């Protein structure tokens, strides 16, 4: 499964969260690039209290830091059953308001 990230056509750097210019070479040459969503779930935490009442009905929520093989780190929701340290695959799904959010899931067998 591939994911779309912001990449620099001049130096090849990838970045997340998105920036206005390339974080590495400062070139104005950014565009979407396909990357494998594979990486490692470095650590996770369980949100029991949210700052926004709108999330109250969803709690508890599990979030984590995924370190992608391409070197970036992304905060994502974490699927049930994953353990910290294991290989995962990131995917994007529409959240409640329709915006695309990151989810970390198990690496598919055979991939």
């Amino acid at each position, binding site marked *: 499964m591939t994911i779309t990230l912001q990449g620099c056509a001049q130096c090849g750097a990838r970045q997340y969260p998105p920036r206005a210019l390339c974080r590495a070479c400062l070139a104005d040459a950014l565009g979407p690039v396909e990357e494998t969503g594979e990486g490692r779930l470095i650590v996770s935490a369980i949100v029991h209290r949210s700052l926004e009442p709108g999330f109250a009905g969803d709690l508890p929520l599990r979030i984590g830091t995924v370190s992608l093989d391409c070197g970036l780190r992304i*905060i994502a929701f974490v699927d049930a059953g994953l353990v910290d340290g294991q290989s995962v695959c990131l995917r994007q799904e529409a959240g409640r308001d329709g*915006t695309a959010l990151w989810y970390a899931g198990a690496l598919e067998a055979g991939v």
Partner: protein
Amino acid sequence: MPVQPFDGVAVVAPTTVRYVRHSDKPAHWWVGRALHDVTAAAGITKQEVDGLALSSFTMGPDTTIAMTEHFDMAPRWIEWLPTGGASGVMALRRAARAVQAGDASIVACIGADTANPASFAELVSNFSHFSDSAVRPYGAPGPNGMFALITAHYMARFGATRADFGAIATAQRSNAAGNPNALLGGKALNLEQYLAAPAIVEPLHLFDCVMPCAGAEAFLVMSEERARGLGLPHAVIRGSIERHNAYFDEPVAVRAGWAMDRDSLYAQAGVGPEAMDCLEVYDDYPVIVAMQLEDLGFCAKGEAAQFLRHNSLTIEGALPVNTSGGQLSCGQAGAAGGFLPVVEALRQITGQTLGRRVPGARLALASGYGMVTYDRCLATAAAVLEGRA
């Protein structure tokens, strides 16, 4: 070029405007009260203040310049420090250089914030572009979410336990007893209570998290000559460091900028960490206290838990840390929390404490850490201060 020494500069008049849980007054009131109190403490008028350095999260859209008009001042030097937990040490450093250069003769350094039920959520939801787009959609955990990840990672990597972090929280609560400004100072906290507290963002529980409040902290920077002329107990700056966005490639923060610069800090000071009579560090979460113990050289990386099992951080202990109770016991008065380490260090080494004093304290290290724009704080700063009667 080596770091120029901070010779000839005095830090005086540690000032705290009593914290309250909620305030319907604007941040401007807290800034103004701090200015009133800090000048009164030094026996000067506000007209003699010709430099003004401010930090606040809730003063928007105003900054330092608007405060000059608000309070009929005409300073010849101003500074605005939107750097939260690092803003106190950063204000100190900038004010000291301004005094050395003759750009100002007396600088008032103030961190102040108001607090009401809406202000904190509002602040967090508009804190940075990155956190708004890449953290908030994930349950809006606020800083608790990012520091839960840092804490969980630290625990797994170095074998620290919740009880180790509990040792920090309970020691600081013990230190808060006797400090009338500590909002939680009257509430004893033992390890059983710490461990039994409700989860906020696991592994963080209630007593790992600071309680937002309103308040202000302030001090003045002037020449030593001026401080002596005014008859003020004062401190001198033996050394100081600052760093931003250190180790940005590390997937989860296990260290911060202090580790990059501590050799410079102690070289400037001419003494090492073992010489410190007390340590006043930024304590948004216990793991960050542990990180500072390591990165500032009190123990090796990953060994804070071991250190805590053998060294008490209480005022009576081997290494008194956060002798006011810190933010974990006083409350987090926004940017004033970033001034608390400097103000409490100054109180300890000049004998002007609100609560208990480390007997004979002369050397103190004050450290700041601020601005979690994505998944860690970016700003670090520290200073070694020495009291002069």
